[in-house]
Structure formats: structure tokens, C-alpha cells
């Protein structure tokens, strides 16, 4: 039973690291960097070096800016609380990420290829309830007599990844795998996140029910006596994180169906980080009521008795602090894609993917077309489904002045054109260096 419980925790409740889902990179199958999504991708050149490739993005399953604000006659946007509340799902996810793929090197010989990857990643995810948003936007004064389920769940992780991979081509089949050594820098994540606040109708008596556990590693330090929050130094320092360690795995398989069509299936980010240093855990398991400052008699009501109110409220949301290691799991990212080489200069790509962030299943799908304009320029566009919306138009460009390959792209150009309506954002650019003998692989990878 204990084992089943542990499995349950690992699968559904365990804190998760989660890289932002990217669509553009998998669709740019001609790009060496697309091996990020497909570990079974066989490089075309004997040597392939990935220079820094930086990407960032956010995704919000809740309303966009435009849904939250209305514009008044003076042109000023005003938060429309009720309109905003109506737009929230019962449960909403916000994810933000920055991925810095700092360095990568592939060496390929015969039907074999080994690779090394190093990068630093920042991932943040917050799951909040409509009640929580309502409390934040409108306060509890509009929820008198109601119980608000406000407990937000969140994960904020900063870590480095050093991966060593191997790809083997067997006729039409390619198999790839990568072992990733994980070095945790900072973490802040919830293990339990139930917090219910009831505001009584009689005289606004507050009842709080909590089952809340927050883990931190070199992120925050809370003085539980004063509830003062001190943030750790957030300066990025080169090297490897020293507060946690773990191992992750990526697997992929590709298949060449005929001369024009290939496909792949991959699962990446299996594994976890155990955080051991600079850790602290803040927990609250209580049912507490706060009825205001308790005064023995109205005759004794004075300023001094009222000044104790803040202290009482602080105790009302008291957390216990403890020290000990904790574990955060990577969020497996399942992806399936394919490429149809329509002509020598045009390919069509498709991708399906899914991951589960803070208990919320986030699927995505995209199709794209890549044009080779000339020997040094490729452009592409895509249409994708993500975050319950289909209005994602991606653009990408690749410049190749061998041995340099430079690229940039976005999953949704509309984000930048109409930011007020956006609830996803993505942008990535990078540089690859390819040299050595060019090998026409049996498997095809897009243009080129």
C-alpha cells in the first residue's frame, strides 16, 4: 500500500520541473537543435557544435490582459474585476520559462553519434484557482459567507543540465537516448497546497483550513516569528548548481517510412532532482478561526488591545519551519512528430505533444511548412493548437553560412502583434556550428 501511495505521489502530486513546450523547434526539423525534442535525431555532419541557443516563453491558461482590463474614455486600462473573474477557469496554470542551451557537441561516425549538452534552465509554474484570483482581485469582502479555495500550487526551479547522449542508426530506424545529470540551483515548490478561507457573514470572522507545504532551496527564508520573507541572492553565476542533484533521461526513436516521409516518437525529461542544501520546508496543517482581537470586556477596549490585531492575524497564518531534503520531479514531455519532404525546397512538418503541469494536462499540436529560399536562407511558418486555442501562427528563419547555422523563431507571432490578447509567448534564437564531412543520412530531417 505504501508503495502504491508513493507511486501515486510521484505520478500526480510530486513537484515537477517542466520546460516550456516549444513547437517551433520540433517543426524546424532541418535544425540540429531539433534534437532537443527528438533525441534520436542523427546529425548530418561529422561534427556539430551548438552554440548558445536561448529561448523564453510563457503560457497562461487563464484570461489574457484584454480579458482582465477594460479601456475607459481616457484610454486608460482599468482592471475589471468581475469581468476578470468570469474569465478564469476553476483551475488556471501560468508557466514561464527561460532555457539557455549553452553548449552542445555531436560527433558522428558511421551509423553512430554521441553528443554532449549543457544548459541552464529556469522554469516557473503557478496553478491558481478562480477563487484565489477572485481573492486577489476583489478581496474577500465580496465573498462574505462563502468559502474560497485559494491555495495556489507553484514550482519555481533553476537548474543546470549536463547530458551525454548516443544515437544509433539501424537501416530505417534510429534510436537515441541521453542521460542528463541535473544540478539544482534554486527551488521553490509546493507539496501540499490546500488553503480554504471562509469569511463569516456575522462580523467577517475568518476561518482558515490549511494543508500547505512549501519547500525551498536557496530561494526564500521566512522568519516564522515575524513572517518576514527574505529572498536569496538571485544573481546567476556560471557553473553548476550545488543545492541539488539528480539524473534525468531522454529517449527517442525515429523511422524513415519512405524517401519523403519520416517520423519520430520521443519522451524527454524523465527523472528528478533531490535538493539537499540550503533547504527549508514551511508547513501549515490547521483549522483556525480568527474572530478579531479578543477583549475581555468592552470596558477594556483600547488602542493597545487593537494593536494586537496584526500579531493575531500573523499567528492565524502561522507556518512551521523545518529543514530537510526534498525532491522535485521532471515533467515527462511526450512528443510525436513527422516530416514530409514535399519537394527539395519544401517540407511539411507536424508535431503532437503533451505534458502534465501541476496536475493539469497540457496538450499541443502543430503543423508547419519550411521553405528553402536559397542555399543560405530558410523560412517557415506554422499553425498550432496550444492552450485550448488554435490561433497560434509561428514564424521562423534559418540562415546558414556554413559552418554557421543561425536561427530564430516564435511559436506565435500574434503575441507580439497583439500582446493584450495573448496568453502565450515564445521566442528562441540560437547558433549552431557544423563542420566535417556531410553525410547524406538514410533518415531525412527536413530541408538540406
Amino acid at each position, binding site marked *: 500500500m505504501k508503495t502504491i501511495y508513493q507511486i501515486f505521489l510521484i505520478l500526480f502530486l510530486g513537484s515537477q520541473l517542466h520546460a516550456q513546450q516549444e513547437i517551433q523547434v520540433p517543426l524546424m526539423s532541418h535544425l540540429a537543435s531539433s534534437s532537443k525534442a527528438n533525441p534520436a535525431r542523427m546529425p548530418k555532419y561529422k561534427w556539430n557544435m551548438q552554440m548558445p541557443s536561448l529561448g523564453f516563453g510563457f503560457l497562461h491558461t487563464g484570461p489574457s*490582459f484584454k480579458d482582465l*482590463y477594460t479601456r475607459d474614455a481616457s*484610454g*486608460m*486600462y*482599468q*482592471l*475589471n*474585476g468581475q469581468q476578470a473573474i468570469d474569465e478564469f477557469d476553476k483551475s488556471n496554470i501560468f508557466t514561464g520559462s527561460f532555457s539557455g542551451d549553452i553548449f552542445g557537441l555531436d560527433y558522428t561516425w558511421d551509423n553512430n553519434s554521441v553528443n554532449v549538452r549543457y544548459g541552464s534552465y529556469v522554469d516557473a509554474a503557478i496553478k491558481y484557482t478562480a477563487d484565489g484570483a477572485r481573492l486577489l*482581485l*476583489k*478581496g*474577500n*469582502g*465580496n465573498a*462574505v459567507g462563502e468559502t474560497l479555495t485559494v491555495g495556489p500550487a507553484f514550482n519555481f526551479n533553476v537548474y543546470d543540465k549536463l547530458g551525454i547522449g548516443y544515437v544509433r542508426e539501424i537501416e530505417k530506424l534510429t534510436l537515441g537516448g541521453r542521460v542528463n545529470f541535473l544540478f539544482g540551483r534554486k527551488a521553490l515548490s509546493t507539496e501540499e497546497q490546500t488553503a480554504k478561507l471562509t*469569511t*463569516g457573514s*456575522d*462580523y*467577517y*470572522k*475568518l476561518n482558515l483550513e490549511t494543508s500547505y507545504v512549501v519547500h525551498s532551496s536557496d530561494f526564500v527564508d521566512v522568519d516564522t516569528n515575524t513572517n518576514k520573507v527574505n529572498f536569496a541572492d538571485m544573481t546567476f553565476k556560471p557553473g553548476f548548481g550545488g543545492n541539488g542533484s539528480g539524473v534525468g533521461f531522454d529517449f527517442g526513436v525515429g523511422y524513415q517510412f519512405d524517401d519523403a516521409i519520416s517520423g519520430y516518437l520521443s519522451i524527454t525529461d524523465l527523472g528528478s532532482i533531490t535538493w539537499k542544501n540550503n533547504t527549508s520546508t514551511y508547513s501549515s496543517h490547521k483549522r483556525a478561526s*480568527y*474572530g*478579531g*482581537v*479578543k*477583549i*475581555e*470586556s*468592552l*470596558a477594556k*477596549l*483600547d*488602542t493597545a*488591545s*487593537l494593536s494586537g*490585531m496584526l500579531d493575531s*492575524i500573523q499567528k492565524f497564518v502561522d507556518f512551521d519551519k523545518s529543514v530537510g531534503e526534498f525532491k522535485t520531479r521532471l515533467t515527462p514531455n511526450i512528443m510525436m512528430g513527422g516530416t514530409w519532404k514535399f519537394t527539395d525546397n519544401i517540407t511539411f512538418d507536424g508535431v503532437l505533444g503533451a505534458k502534465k503541469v501541476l496536475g493539469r494536462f497540457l496538450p499541443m499540436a502543430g503543423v508547419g511548412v519550411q*521553405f528553402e*529560399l*536559397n542555399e543560405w*536562407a530558410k*523560412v517557415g511558418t506554422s499553425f498550432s493548437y496550444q492552450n485550448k486555442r488554435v490561433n497560434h501562427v509561428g*514564424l*521562423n*528563419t534559418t540562415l546558414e553560412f556554413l559552418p554557421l547555422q543561425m536561427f*530564430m*523563431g*516564435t511559436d506565435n*507571432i500574434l503575441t*507580439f*502583434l497583439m*500582446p*493584450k490578447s495573448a496568453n502565450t509567448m515564445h*521566442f528562441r534564437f540560437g547558433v549552431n556550428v557544423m563542420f566535417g564531412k556531410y553525410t547524406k543520412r538514410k533518415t531525412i530531417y527536413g530541408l538540406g
Partner: protein
Amino acid sequence: MKKIKNNVFLMWMAGLLIGVSCTTPTDIQVERETVDLAFPVFTSETSISELIDGGVDSTALVVHSDHEMGLYYETKTHVGVSMPELEDMSLDLNPMTTIPNLPVSGVNIEKAKFDGGTMSFSFRNTQFDKNIKVVLRVNQLSKDGGIFSKTLDLDYTGSFPVTADVAVPLEGYKMDISQSPLQIEYQASFNDGSTASIDEAKMEMKEAEFGWVEGDWGVQSIPVETPDHEIGFFDHYSNGGVVHFANPKLNIIAQNSVGIPSKFVFNGITVNTLGSGEISVFGDFVDDGFSLAYPSIDQLGTYLTSVDEMNKTNSNIVEIFNAQPTDINYDIDFLVSPGGNGTGFIAKDAGVDLTMGVELPFEGTLSDFKVEKSFDVKFTNEYVQAATMKLYAKNQIPLDARIQMYFLDNAGIVLDSLVASNGILAVSSAIVAPSGDVIQAKKWDEEVSIDLDKWSRIKSAVEVKLVTSFTSSSAGQVPVKIKSNQRVELNAGLKLVVQP
């Protein structure tokens, strides 16, 4: 074709770059909507006694075992009865000397006990060259069961005069002269037993003090000095309103150690009132006086308690207390032997401790009876746009309470009030049976809005004066009983409209 491709690429790049460069919208200047924060401010449980505490001398509040309570104001005095003094005596003695009347005034002594003094005897022989023995005896004096008796030897040593003296402390001796007067006997004899005569025999009694004296005291009247009996309640709460005490009482308690029939005679009782000036108390209580229980000689040293009560059946006390009395003045005499039979005793330090207590049970009616309470405040939150105070009460006290809060500045000037001057913030009374007893608590809640204008006026206040006006059920027409276990639970919450 190549040109077209190049143009497509350039357009593509331009679209991508232009699109990305549009990341930061410049026309967004957001303003947050107000947020409503609701939270409890205080919760309290209090009784009427705690509410008026501080305004009333705390010793004035009394609670009985049945939770009935009221105000109690008392004054005390001591009536001392002086012990008769026995004058010093000096007598020439015969072999049988009788003292028919002791030199003492105010009483015909029958029995007494001495607490001090001496009785001295002196004998002188100037003619017999023999030894003489003198035996003294006083049958009316005894100590520890033994009759007073002394033997003196006048031994001849070859010269005259031959003298013998003795001084006997009187402390502890009892004297009983109820059957016969005090008689001092002596018998002088030679060694052979023959009777001798004494040239000179004397007795002196000096500084005699009685421990107690029993006898006939006759009729005596002793004026009693009583301090003014202050009733502070109406002085403190004279700020309007009508209080009707249904059952006021004046309890008079005497602790008496004087063993003589006696009573207090009220020559007059007058009351100063706020409402009607000076009022005289009259009725059977005043006319009859207050007879005291007294100890018998067997109960010497004990105090017997006598209690009497002036109430609405034997006086006009209700009328007096509806006139808001401030103090009572007594003209009282302590009358010994009121019936003429003055036989009894007085012990040293005997007297009467007299306590007079005005009891005002919280039973009656109140109308617009105000209690004020002030406390300092400091409002500092400048983000508050408006506020709503939510009051919730559970009232077990049979009084309606009208609440008003005044916000005062440094100079004590009222900046504003919680509700409009003609507004009502009334906590309803508990439900009361015809007997005046509470049969069910009453729940009550009220919201008071404080808009931006009002908030801007009161946020500079430094003091809040809470004025509570109490009225009993049915607009003060139905008598109610206020008990110590009746409480009012008052809770306050605040909803603030905050502009972040």
C-alpha cells in the same frame, strides 16, 4: 525567381523582427480596481457591571449567589459606651468595715470584674511588745474561686511602732455586691490566740479599672455621630436618562457587644437629591427605631448581630431613589434601657458597630441611561476609500442599547460620528418575561457605511468616544432584572474598500 525568393525572405525577416519588436505595448497605463477586504476587528463578552466599571466605585457592585446584582453603598460608624470609673478611696478600717456605696457614677453596680488598680492595707502597733497576726478578708471579692484573704505579721523587735503593709493588685478579682455591700473584715491576735487591738488600720483603693460592670444603668441616650452616606451612582451618571430602581433598600446592621437592652432611635433622616433637593425619610422604619439584640453576661465578649431593612413597605425610599439621591444624613441616638429596665452589663471596649448600606438591585427600568467610554485610535491607511463597520451582538441583558461613536481630534472637537446624528444603532434587549427575568437572548447585527467623505473626516481622529444609551424593555416601561451572568457579546468587523 531568385529575386522573388529574396523578397520573400526579406519580408519574412521583417515580419518576424517587427513582430518581435512590438513586444512592449506603450499604450497600457493600468489602474487597479478597488479591493474589498473584510476582517474581524474585535470580539468581546461583557456584562453591564463591566460596562459601568470605572464610573462606579468597584466596591459598589455586588453580586449575589443567584446572580442577582446591584449597587451597594455603605457607611459605618462605631457607638462606644464608656466604662464607669471608680474613684480612689481611702478608709480607716474597723474589724468590720462596710462600704455601702462605691464612688462610681452612671450605674448601680451589682457585679464587676477588675482589670487594674490596687487595694492597699496598712496596720500599725504602738503599744504591745508582742507579736501580732492580722488576717484580712473581703467576702465580696474573689479570684479563681477563692475569697480575698491576706495575713499580715506585726513582729515586735524591741521598738515601736510596728507596722505591716500589703498592696494587692485588683486585676482578675471579681466583685459581687448584689446581695450585700462591700465589707472588709480583719482579725488581730497574739501568739497565744487572744484578741489584739490595732492602733491604726487603713485601706486605700487606687486607679481601679473595671473589665466589665453589671448593674442597673438607668435610661441613657447617647448621640451617634455618623458620616454622610454618599451615593455615587447618580453623581457619575447624571448625564441624562431616567433610572427607576424598583426595589431600593437601606440595610442597617448592628454588631452589639453591650449587654444592656438598647435601640437606635432615628430623630431624622434626610436625603439630598439631584431631582428634588432635600427629602426627609419617613415611615414605620423611622418611627419604630431599631432595637438591638444584646449579649448576656454568659456571652461576655461576643457581638450579637441585628439587622433591619428600610424598604418600600416601611418607608418612602422608592420616592427618594427616583429623585437621584447623592447622600444621606442621619440623626440617630443610641438609647440604653429604652423600656426603663436598665439592668445589664458593659464590658471594657464594648460598643456597637453600625453599618448602613443602600442596596440598589438592578431591578427596575432604565430610559436613555448613558454610559461613556473613550479610547485612543490612530487611523493611518491612506489607501482606504470607504469602509463598512459590521456589528454583531448577542444580547442577554434586558436592556436596549443605542450606540454612537464620536471621532474627536487633538483638541477634543468632534470630527464626525459613526452614524448620523438622527440615526439609530440599537442593540435590541433580550426577551423578558413579565417577572423581569430574561427568557431568551436576542441576536442583532447592523452595517454602518463610511463613505470616502466621512472617512476623510474621521481618519485624522485621535480619540473615539463610545456612548451607549441603555433603555429597558418596552421603552423603559417594563421592570427588568439585570444579573451578573447576563452578558452581551459584541463583535465588530470591518470591510475596507482599498485602492491598491
